[in-house]
C-alpha cells in the first residue's frame, strides 16, 4: 500500500464510526434533544387571558420568564411528593434488589429440576405491562373476593397507612424478575474455578456467596441499584393505575404524577414543563456519579482499531 493510499484509507476510516452512528444520532436528536428543548421553551411560557376568556383569541401565550420555576419550587405539593417517593424508594429498592439477589444466588447455586421453571416464573412479571399488573393487583386487594385480604386478617389495603405498601408491592412484584436476570447473568459469568476450590474445602454455599460471588458482582449490583433508584423516583404507573380505587392516593402522589396532573388534568402544560425540567436536572445530577462509574470503568479495557 502506498503512503497516499494508506492515508486515504485512514481518512475514510475516520469517518466510518460517525457514519455508523448517524442513524442513532439523528433519531436521538429528533426524538430526545428537540423535545427536551421544546419542554424548556414551554417552561418559560404561560397562558395569558383577557376578559372572560370566552371568545376566540382571548387566550394567548406569552413569555413568563422563570415564574413557572419559582412556582414549582415553592409548591408544597411537589416537596411532599418528593418526600413521599423517597420513603417509597426506601421500601421498594432494598426489597426488590434483596429479593432479586436472593433468587439469583439460589438459582446459581442450586441444581434442582425446578430451577429453570422457577427462573421463568420469577422473570415473568417483566412481561406484564404495569397498567395491567395494577389492574390485577387491584382485584387481588379487593376485600371479600381476594384470599390475600383474608390472609391479612381483612386489612384495608387502600387505607392511608397501608396504601404505600400496596403500591410498593406492585413495583417489587414487577421489578424483581428483571433485576434477578441481570444479577444472575453476572453470576453466571464468574468462572467456576474461582469458587470450586472453596467448595472442595467444604465452604458453605452461604459463605461462598458472601465471600466470593457477591464481591465479584458488585459492579452489576451498583448498576442495578442506580437504575432501580432512578426508576423508583420516577414512579408513576403504579400509583396512577391504583388511584381510582383509593382515597389515599392523590393526584400529586409522586413528582411525575404531579407533572401529569398539571399537564392533562389542569391543562397547564407550562407548569408541567417547568416541573419536568427540574426533575430531569435532579435526575441528571443524581446519575452523574453513576455515569462516571460506568463510563470510566466499564469500557476501560475496550480496544479500538
Amino acid at each position, binding site marked *: 500500500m502506498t503512503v497516499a493510499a494508506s492515508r486515504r484509507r485512514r481518512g*475514510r*476510516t475516520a469517518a466510518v464510526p460517525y457514519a*455508523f*452512528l448517524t442513524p*442513532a444520532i439523528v*433519531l436521538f436528536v429528533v*426524538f430526545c434533544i428537540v*423535545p*427536551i428543548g421544546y*419542554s424548556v421553551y414551554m417552561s418559560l411560557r404561560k397562558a395569558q387571558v383577557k376578559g372572560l376568556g370566552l371568545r376566540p383569541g382571548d387566550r394567548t401565550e406569552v413569555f413568563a420568564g422563570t415564574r413557572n420555576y419559582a412556582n414549582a419550587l415553592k409548591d408544597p405539593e411537589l416537596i411532599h411528593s418528593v418526600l413521599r417517593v423517597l420513603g417509597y424508594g426506601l421500601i421498594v429498592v432494598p426489597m426488590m434488589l434483596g429479593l432479586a439477589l436472593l*433468587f439469583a444466588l439460589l438459582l446459581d447455586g*442450586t*441444581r*434442582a429440576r*425446578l*430451577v*429453570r421453571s422457577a427462573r421463568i*416464573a*420469577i422473570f*415473568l412479571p417483566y*412481561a*406484564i*405491562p*404495569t*397498567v395491567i*399488573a395494577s*389492574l*390485577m393487583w387491584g*382485584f387481588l386487594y379487593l376485600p371479600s*373476593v381476594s*384470599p390475600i385480604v383474608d390472609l391479612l386478617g381483612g386489612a384495608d389495603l387502600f387505607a392511608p397507612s397501608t396504601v404505600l405498601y400496596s403500591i410498593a408491592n406492585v413495583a417489587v412484584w414487577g421489578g424483581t*424478575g428483571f433485576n434477578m436476570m*441481570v444479577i444472575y447473568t*453476572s453470576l453466571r*459469568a464468574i468462572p467456576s474455578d*474461582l469458587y*470450586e476450590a472453596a467448595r472442595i474445602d467444604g465452604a458453605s454455599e452461604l459463605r461462598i456467596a458472601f465471600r466470593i460471588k457477591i464481591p465479584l*458482582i458488585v*459492579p*452489576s*449490583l*451498583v*448498576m*442495578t441499584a442506580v437504575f432501580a433508584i432512578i426508576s423508583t423516583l420516577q414512579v408513576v404507573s403504579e400509583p396512577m393505575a391504583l388511584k381510582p380505587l383509593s382515597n389515599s392516593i392523590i393526584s400529586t402522589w409522586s413528582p*411525575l404524577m404531579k*407533572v401529569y396532573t398539571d*399537564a392533562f388534568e389542569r391543562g397547564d402544560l407550562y407548569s408541567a414543563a417547568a416541573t*419536568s425540567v427540574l426533575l430531569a436536572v435532579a*435526575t441528571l445530577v443524581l*446519575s452523574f456519579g453513576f*455515569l462516571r462509574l460506568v*463510563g470510566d*470503568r*466499564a*469500557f*476501560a*479495557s475496550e*480496544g*479500538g*482499531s
Partner: protein
Amino acid sequence: MTTTLTRERPHVRAAGRPRVRRRGGGAVPTTILLLGAFYMLLPVLWVVVASTKNLGELFDSSAFTPSGHLFENLSRLSSYRDGVYWHWVANSALYAGGGALLSAAVSGISGYALAKFRFAGKTALFNVLLCGVLMPQIMLAIPQYLLLSKLGLADTYASVLLPQIISPYGIYLARIYAGAAIPDSVLEAARMDGAREFQIVRRVVLPMMAPGLVTVFLFQFVAIWNNFLLPFIMLGDDTKFPVTVGLFTMMKQGANQPAQYTLITTGVLLAILPMIALFLTLQRYWRVDLGSGAVKG
C-alpha cells in the same frame, strides 16, 4: 480475574458454561424459590381463573375458584366492536416487531462503532446517549406529540414506531456485547484483506453480534409491547391502538359498564400469552449484563 479470560468469553453469551454443580438442591433454597415463583405467578393465575368467569362470578365467587365461561368470554371478546381486539393485537405485533427490529439494527451498528473505533467525541456522545435513558418519558412524550403533529404525523403508525427505535439501553448493551464478542484481530484481518467497512459489518460483525442483537430485540420488543404512554398520547383513532391502550380504554369504560370486566380479564390473558411464549422459546437470550465490563477491570 484477568482481562484475557473474559475477552475470550463474551459475557452476554449463549448457553451455560461447563462447571461442576452441586448435586441436588437443599430443601431451604428450593422452598424459597418455590415461594418466589408462587408470588410471581399469583396474579397471573388470577387472570387465568378470572377469564373463565362470567360477570357475577367475577365479583361474587372466591378469586381462585375457576368457572367454565372461558370460551363464551373469548367469543364475546372476539365479537366486541367487530373484533377490534384482534386489530389491537395485530397493531401491537407490528409496533413491537417492527420497532424492535429497527431498534436492534440501530443499536447494533452504534454499539459496534462505539466499542471498536476510536474517534473524537466518543465518550461525550456515549454519555449524552445514556442520559437519554434517564429522561422521564412523560417529559418527552408531550413535546414529541406536539412536534409530530406539526409534521402531520400524529395519530399514524409512524408516530408510535419512530420514537421507539432509539434505545440508549440497547446501544449500551450492544456496545458491551460488541466489545466482548468481536476480537480486534478479526477486524484487522478483514481490513488487511481489503474488505470495506460495510462488508466487514455484514460478513464479520453481524454474525458475531447476532446473539446479542437477539437479546436487544427481545428487550425492546417487550418494552414496546408493554408501552402505554406514548401510543396513548399519539393515537386518537382506536383502530391504531396497541393492545395496552385498547385494554386501558375498555377498563375505563368498565367503570360504567362492568360487563366489560370479563372481556378485559380475557383480553389480558391473551395479551400476556405471546410474552410467555417468547420467554419459553428464547430463554437462552434473556440475559443482561450490566456490569461485565467493570468485572474485567
